[in-house]
C-alpha cells in the first residue's frame, strides 16, 4: 500500500472535507477563486483555507476589506464575467450586511435579464458553540423566501465535500450553510475519487417505518441519537436529511411521510416562519389523507441565540424534545 493510499483512507473532519472540496475545485478549474475576510494570510477564522494563499496566490485567495456587501457584489460581477467566486462569510450572522446584494442582485439577476451568477457563499452557521447572538445564527430562513437562490446545508463530511463541489459547479448563486458545531466533531473516510452530491436531493440517514423526522444540519445528528433511544422503545423513526433546502426534495419528503404517516420537523432556526413551517404546510396540502397524527415542529423559541450555557442549552432542541414528540405521535 502506498503512502498516498494510506493517507486517502484516513478519516477527515467535516472542516477538512470543506477544505478538500475547495482545494480540489481550485485545482480542477482555474476560474474558481476565493474571497473573504482573513482567508489569506490567516487562513480563515476556522482555518478552512490555511495554506491556500501560498498555493494559489493573492489573486485567487483574496483577503477583502471588512465589507460583506461590497465583496458579495464584487463576486456577482466576477461570476457574470465567467469566473467562479466562492465567498466566505466569517460567520453566517454577518451575511445580513450583504442581504441586499444577495436577494436583490444575485437572486433576481438571471430572471430579470438572463445573466447567470455562478457564485457560492459559504456561511458558517448554527449554535452550540457559545457564540452568543452574533456568532450562532441560522439565517437560512431569510433566503429560503427569496426565489433565485439555492440553499444547501450538509450534515456529514461526505455531504459537505460533495455538496460544495456541486455548488461550485452550479450556474446559480448557492448559499452553502456549513455547521460550525460539526467542524471538528465528526469524521469520515471519504472516497478518493472525485464525486459530487447533487443539489436538490435529500438523503434518508436512517430508514424507519413509524415516524419521519425531517431535518438538516447539526440537528441530523440529534435526530439520529433520538432514533437510537426510540428504537429501544419499539418506535422506528426515519431520519430524512434535507441536505438541500432550495430546491426542496419534495419527492423524498412526501415518500417518507406517506410511508410512516407521521411527521416531525426539526430545525435549529427559530420556529416562526421557519423552514419547518413551510414543510408542514406542504405536508398538509399534499399528504393530508395519509397523516395519522398532527405534524409536529421542534425548533428553538423566537429569541436571539443566547450566550450563557444554561440559556443556550434551554434554547437549542434536545434529544429529549424529539423523544417526547415521537412518543406523543406514536400514541396516535
Amino acid at each position: 500500500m502506498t503512502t498516498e493510499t494510506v493517507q486517502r483512507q484516513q478519516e477527515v473532519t467535516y472542516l477538512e472535507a470543506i477544505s478538500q472540496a475547495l482545494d480540489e475545485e481550485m485545482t480542477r478549474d482555474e476560474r474558481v477563486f476565493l474571497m473573504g475576510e482573513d482567508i489569506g494570510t490567516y487562513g480563515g477564522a476556522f482555518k478552512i483555507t490555511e495554506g491556500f494563499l501560498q498555493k494559489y496566490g493573492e489573486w485567487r485567495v483574496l483577503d477583502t476589506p471588512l465589507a460583506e456587501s461590497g465583496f458579495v457584489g464584487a463576486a456577482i460581477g466576477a461570476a457574470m464575467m465567467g469566473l467562479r467566486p466562492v465567498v466566505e462569510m466569517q460567520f453566517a450572522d454577518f451575511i445580513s450586511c450583504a442581504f441586499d446584494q444577495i436577494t436583490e442582485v444575485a437572486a433576481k439577476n438571471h430572471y430579470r435579464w438572463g445573466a447567470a451568477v455562478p457564485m457560492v457563499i459559504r456561511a458558517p452557521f448554527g449554535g452550540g458553540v457559545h457564540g452568543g447572538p452574533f456568532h450562532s445564527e441560522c439565517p437560512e430562513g431569510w433566503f429560503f423566501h427569496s426565489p433565485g437562490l439555492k440553499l444547501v446545508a450538509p450534515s456529514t463530511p461526505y455531504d459537505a465535500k460533495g455538496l460544495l463541489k456541486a455548488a461550485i459547479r452550479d450556474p446559480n448563486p448557492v448559499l452553502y450553510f456549513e455547521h460550525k458545531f460539526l467542524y471538528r466533531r465528526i469524521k469520515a473516510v471519504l472516497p478518493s475519487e472525485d464525486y459530487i452530491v447533487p443539489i436538490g436531493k435529500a438523503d434518508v440517514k436512517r430508514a424507519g417505518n413509524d415516524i419521519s423526522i425531517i431535518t438538516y444540519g447539526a440537528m441530523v445528528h440529534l435526530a439520529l441519537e433520538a432514533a437510537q433511544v426510540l428504537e429501544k422503545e419499539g418506535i422506528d423513526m426515519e431520519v430524512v436529511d434535507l441536505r438541500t433546502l432550495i430546491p426542496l426534495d419534495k419527492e423524498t419528503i412526501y415518500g417518507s411521510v406517506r410511508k410512516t404517516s407521521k411527521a416531525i420537523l426539526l430545525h435549529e432556526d427559530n420556529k416562526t416562519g421557519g423552514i419547518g413551517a413551510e414543510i408542514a404546510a406542504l405536508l398538509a396540502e399534499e399528504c393530508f389523507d395519509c397523516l395519522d397524527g398532527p405534524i409536529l415542529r421542534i425548533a428553538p423559541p423566537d429569541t436571539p441565540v443566547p450566550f450563557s450555557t444554561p440559556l443556550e442549552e434551554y434554547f437549542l432542541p434536545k434529544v429529549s424534545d424529539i423523544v417526547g414528540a415521537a412518543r406523543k405521535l406514536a400514541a396516535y
Partner: protein
Amino acid sequence: MYTSHGMEAIAVGYASALERDDVIAPFHRDMGAFLIRGFTPGEILAQYLGKRTGPSKGKDGNVHMGDLKRGMISFVSHLADNLPVATGIALAFKIRGERRVAFTGTGDGGTSRGDFHEAMNFAAVRKLPVVIFCNNNQYAYSTPQRLQMAIHDVADRAKAYGMPGEIVDGNDVAAVYVASNRAIARARAGEGPTFLEFKTMRMHGHSEHDPAKYVPHELLEEWKKKDPILKAEQLLIQLGYGDAAYFQEIGERVKKEVEAGVEFAEQSPLPEGPEVLEGVFAEEANRY
C-alpha cells in the same frame, strides 16, 4: 419613466470613450449608453411596453435592461448596488490579465449608500480597472444635495479612498469624453480606479409623474441655457463638422427611427402569463 433630459452628454460622452469589450453598469438616466451599445429604439420601447421582444422579455421594465454580449449590465433600483458588481467585473479582468475596463456610476444621492463606499474602497485597495462616476444633478428625487452630504463637491469623496477625483462639466459632451478617456486609459494601464464627478442638472422630475415643484424655477432657467445637446451642436458647428441643416436632417432621421421603433414595439407580442415561471434558475452559466 426616468429621462436623461439635460443629462444626455454624460452617457454619450463616456460610452463613446470605451472600447466595445469594456463593460458598462449604467445609471438609470444613461439611455445614450444603451443606444451606443446597439440597443435599437424598437427593443428599448418593447422593454418599456413589457413586450416579449424587449431585452428582459417582460420580466423587468423600463431602463432595467441589460445584455452581456453588448457589455451592458442591467440597472438595479437600489442605487449604487451595481457599483460593487462593477468592481467585481473589473476584478475578473484583472485576474485574467485582460486589458478591459468596467465603467459605472450613480447619482449624488447614491453616493450616500454604503455600497458606493464599499465599492470605492475595494476598487482602490485592489487597483481595479474601473471608472466610477457621479452624475451630480443636484437632486436625489426631491432631496437637494445639501441634505444629502455636507460637502460641496462629491469628487472630494475620492480622496478618502486614495483615488483621484475629478470635477467635469457634465453638460459638455467633449469634456465628459476627454475626462472619461483619461480615466479609462489610466485603468487600462493598471494604474487603478478614477472617480469622476459630472456636474449637471436634472431638467425633469425624478420620473415623469413628478412635476418637481421643489426645484426653484430660476435654477432650471439657468441650466436650460446649458442644454448639452444644443451645446454639442454649437461646438460641432464651430468646428465645422456640420451646419443647422445637417442637425435638422439628423433630427428627422432619428424621428423616423423612433417611429419605426414604436411600430415594432406596439406590434410585438406580450408574454404569456405562464412565462412568469421561466428563468428563476439558470441552466448553464454565461459564455462571455
